[in-house]
């Protein structure tokens, strides 16, 4: 029941916010904050009360720490089937935490239709939690599509109009079309899998375990895998399917950007780890070089474009593309070190990108512009804001001691044994990461001040948010083991399912030599 | 049952239908458009009756009843539109209301 609670809480909280709107603006904010705090506490409670560290020895037994299933549409074998393991737990905790931050950072920013705003915000989060918990593919698809709608409204109704004629409606529509179209591809793949399963067993089933064991002919597996891959690649995003991201980020309100970068992008990586790799191990193996090459392209393309932006939020958006390139490489490298690195990097990127977006939002509240050409020399004027920017920029360029460093380096260390040249080229991205990160610093905070009047210093809420994020970045950068232990079993399961063939080859060649 | 041959009835129905269609496409006055529609519906009805009689099946007449009710409903909606058209645009010309385009 806890699992149902995890999903239902944000939805109910959202409705409450909407109803509370007529009682003033403060009440919905507090309700939303409380809801997400409850979500986080519940997740932490689950974390404390279950043991995630040990992988099941046989490998055949159920690997879920918690499970809940009831039939939904029995005729087609569709169930409401929720399950939780270390990976989903970590990502749900992340959702809860970033949800709280999203509520907090829109405290001043959002003044119109506050209740409805929080309804949308919480429903996004509810949808995301659903995605992380659902292992019935129909239900997964349901949540996958469901989280798009409130996000669309968030961007379209509360967004900012961007520079150079980019409107928020356009950004929202672009976001919706990209993700919707890719979702349809995934639906086709899911149905393909289900029909293949039907052909083999004569039963309809959307269940994870049943579909995982379907044997497919090679070309069919490749096509279905591509359907999944493209759906997730749009969301991750992988160059060249990234077009929606900069627009959506730049035009979304701060809370929307935080959610997008922090959580929504992670659903794609989660999808790859949970579905694309275990369902189609051989096809994924065959596809891995292409995927890694795309990852490398993404790293460089994102970094180069980040250098060319004038809008600070677009810059951060492109850095996300660059970072997700590392995630893609790690996922398709498939060694347990690389996969653990992927988890680490996802969490770390959620924190650092959220931090940078929150900082951009705060700058916008003070300067009413996101154009970096109009900034410069803010160091003496903006008080603590500049210091925090420095810290998050350092995290973003992967400075050791931050969680981002560990994530990137674990991915690179883990992938080096599989694809040394990919890693060598990808490492070049570290230089570009430094270029775009410091460029942000240089253009916003260094240089001659445009105006000498000091800006409002950070208040307690802002200071607390940023300090909390920073503390977590450093904590996971220096003592990540609790996190890694939690996801260890889940990742070794992925590695077992995905890496079987490759390991077999490796041992064979080793024995032959 | 040596009444009118089926072919004759069908030819009559076709002629009526074509007349109605022609009226629909040629006339701009909405009253005539509605009248043409009625003629087309009744042409179809005639074809049903003739067919039903020829094969001795009751469905032909049942369908005609359906067509009558349909025509009645259609006429009431059409006349309502007609009144609205007259009130808002002071005309019965259907081409005057061509503002809704793709």
């Amino acid at each position: 029941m806890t699992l149902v609670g995890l999903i239902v809480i944000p939805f109910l909280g959202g409705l409450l916010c909407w109803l509370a709107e007529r009682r003033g603006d403060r009440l919905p904010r507090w309700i939303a904050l409380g809801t997400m705090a409850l979500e986080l506490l519940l997740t932490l409670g689950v974390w404390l009360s279950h043991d995630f560290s040990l992988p099941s020895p046989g490998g055949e037994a159920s690997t879920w720490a918690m499970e809940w299933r009831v039939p939904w549409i029995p005729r087609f074998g569709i169930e409401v089937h929720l399950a939780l393991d270390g990976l989903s737990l970590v990502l749900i905790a992340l959702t809860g935490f970033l949800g709280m931050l999203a509520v907090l950072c829109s405290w001043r920013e959002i003044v119109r239709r506050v209740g409805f705003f929080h309804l949308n915000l919480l429903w996004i989060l509810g949808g995301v939690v659903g995605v992380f918990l659902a292992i019935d593919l129909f239900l997964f698809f349901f949540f996958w599509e469901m989280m798009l709608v409130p996000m669309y409204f968030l961007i379209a109704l509360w967004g900012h109009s961007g520079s150079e004629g980019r409107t928020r409606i356009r950004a929202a529509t672009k976001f919706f079309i990209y993700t919707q179209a890719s979702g349809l591809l995934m639906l086709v793949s899911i149905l393909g899998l289900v029909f293949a399963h039907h052909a083999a067993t004569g039963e309809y089933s959307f269940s994870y375990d049943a579909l995982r064991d379907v044997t497919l002919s090679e070309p069919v597996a490749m096509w279905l895998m591509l359907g999944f891959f493209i759906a997730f690649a749009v969301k991750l995003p992988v160059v060249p399917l990234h077009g929606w991201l900069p627009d959506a980020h730049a035009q979304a309100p701060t809370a929307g950007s935080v959610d997008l970068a922090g959580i929504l992008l992670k659903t794609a990586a989660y999808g790859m780890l949970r579905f694309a790799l275990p369902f189609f191990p051989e096809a994924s193996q065959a596809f891995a070089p292409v995927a890694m090459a795309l990852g490398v392209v993404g790293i460089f393309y994102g970094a180069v474009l980040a250098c060319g932006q004038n809008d600070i939020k677009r810059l951060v958006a492109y850095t996300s593309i660059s970072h997700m390139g590392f995630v893609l490489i790690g996922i398709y490298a498939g060694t347990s070190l690389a996969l653990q690195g992927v988890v680490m990097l996802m969490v770390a990127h959620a924190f650092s990108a959220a931090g940078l977006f929150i900082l951009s939002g705060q700058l916008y509240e003070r300067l009413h512009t996101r154009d970096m050409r109009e900034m410069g020399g803010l160091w003496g004027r903006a008080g603590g804001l500049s210091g925090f920017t420095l810290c998050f920029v350092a995290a973003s360029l992967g400075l050791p001691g931050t969680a981002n460093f560990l994530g990137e380096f674990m991915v690179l260390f883990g992938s080096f044994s599989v694809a040394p040249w990919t890693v060598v080229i990808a490492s070049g991205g570290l230089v570009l990461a430094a270029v775009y990160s410091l460029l942000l610093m240089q253009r916003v905070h260094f240089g001659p001040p445009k105006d000498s009047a000091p800006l409002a210093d950070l208040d307690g809420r802002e200071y607390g948010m940023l300090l909390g994020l920073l503390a977590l970045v450093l904590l996971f950068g220096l003592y990540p083991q609790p996190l890694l232990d939690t996801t260890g079993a889940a990742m070794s399961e992925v590695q077992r399912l995905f890496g079987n063939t490759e390991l077999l080859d490796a041992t064979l060649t080793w024995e032959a030599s | 049952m040596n009444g009118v041959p089926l072919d004759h009835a069908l030819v009559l129905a076709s002629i009526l239908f074509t007349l109605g269609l022609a009226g629909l496409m040629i006339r701009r006055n909405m009253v005539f458009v509605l009248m043409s529609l009625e003629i087309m519906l009744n042409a179809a009805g005639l074809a049903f009756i003739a067919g039903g009689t020829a094969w001795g099946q009751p469905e032909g007449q049942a369908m005609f009843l359906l067509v009558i009710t349909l025509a009645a409903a259609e006429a009431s909606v059409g006349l309502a539109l007609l009144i609205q058209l007259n009130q808002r645009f002071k005309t019965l010309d259907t081409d005057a209301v061509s503002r809704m385009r793709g």
Partner: protein
Amino acid sequence: MSFLLPLTFLLPLAGTLLLSLSRGRLGERASAAIGTASVGLSALATAALIAGYLEAPERQVVTLWTWVSVGDFQPTLGLALDGLSLTLLGVITGVGLLIHLFAAWYMRGESGITRFYAYMNLFVFSMVLLVLGDNLLLLFLGWEGVGLCSYLLIGYYYRTAANGWAAFKAFIVTRVGDVFLAIGLFLLFRELGTLNIAQLLERAPQLWAEGAPTVELAALLLLGGALGKSAQLPLHTWLADAMAGPTPVSALIHAATMVTAGVYLIARMHELFLLAPDVLLLTGVIGALTLLAAGFAALAQTDIKRVLAYSTMSQIGYMFLALGAGAFDAAIFHLMTHAFFKALLFLSAGAVIVSCHHEQDMRRLGGLWRKLPLAYAGFVVGGAALAALPLVTAGFYSKDEILWQALAAGHGGLLVAGLVGAFLTSIYTLRLIIKTFHGEAKSDNARHAEAGQGLAHGVPLIVLMVLSTFLGAWLTPPLAGVLPDPHEGSAGWHTALEIVASLVALGGLALAAWLFLRRRKWLAEQTSQGWGARLWRWWHHAWGFDTAYDRGLVRPYWRTVHALRSDRVDGLFGLVAIMVRMTHLGLSWTQTGKLRFYGLSMVGGATLVILVLALVR
């Protein structure tokens, strides 16, 4: 005793946290006091460690916790103390303390002292971690940490955009080296399955024969990292620009400690480098080239600090030369004495700069020796050590050791380069002193110089002066057992070399004195026209590396950025939208809004369908 080891870096870290979380509530004095005290305590802890080590020279290992544990990948936050780390630790905290103290005088009245000391403490923290880390990942943490602090401190005067760009350049260029280092780590981990330095060095000889391609590659990658950090060719371009930072920063980071991290890395991994003789030789050659190139560049600078910067590069070139000759202990010894006399020179330069109202162009200084006796004394003592004046200076003993080891190892070429470098060093050192302190004052700033006062100004200079003389050379780093023993050779040759080296240094001084005191006009004429001017310009711009990089790398990169700025790939998807719009335009003419037209099209459509059905059948 084991608690002392973490204290050496936890104290500066505490200082950083205290300063950065104060949110600007601390005053100038309080900030300086906290910043200096934290390093002072750290230096005390180091002193205790040194005392303990001298009593019982054993390798100490303290593991704080396991950083990450995934499969084989188990780097720890583990500290290891041996003679080599201890030497570096002493230099960092000792010289660091003096420089922090001096900075209290230097930075008086500047805004953002709290920020300054927070960065400085963070630097000490990172640098200590760098030398204490018992595995390469932790070393890398310190390695990048000092890079960040260097970036922040170079850009300390953030209001001038050029300073920010200098800092930017410093970080990016060293980052290029860091990437090589990182790839080296990946390779070492894949091959040896560990990152622990002791285990690496133990496993490497078992796995690889001398000169095996993999080990050469690994050593080459590590060397790449060292070149970036230590400003050696071809990754040296950042150091001269790094002088944009406050002078104590240049003294601490860009002379005494951080830039020598590359030397430390190679000395630390010397067993690996010994397995890769080609790379080791390359190290020496690069060192020799750098020391010559930087020596010539130093001849043609007009900014005091830039002369010192090129001289630093050149001296680190000596250390690399020593490493290349397999004389690791000589390199570390020179690292230590260099830290003393170069810190002294930089601090003296700082004293001059502040006294002359932030004038640091030698063409606008002069005639200061009476007004600023202490700074002058500092320059003379430090300069003598830099030029390796025989017998009385610390620099003589360490440089002599390097040259001797190069000879004993049979590297004639390196020896010659070292001697030529020594000659150049004497010339530019004396030029620096003469131009700054002698002759007439050439600007109002120099005419109205005010000598520094107070303990914070005097004590660091005097202590470093003492350390730069032969007294400093008595401090022998306890390197026995950590680094391979020096080469043996005949004592006769050694004495001969000492005499030659002394003559070279003295000859350089004499030539400089003759040129810059007697033939000043002739020199000015020669350098202002024709080939002389071209050569001067070439050296002034340090052989044009900056221009080459700018044309070859930086500008193409920005051109790419501008070409891609508007996200061309996304534009490709715009084509889909355009296609949809075209189709829309093509079809929307059918939406006339005329009822009769719709009726007609329906009839047409129905007829078409019927016809098709009829025909197909």
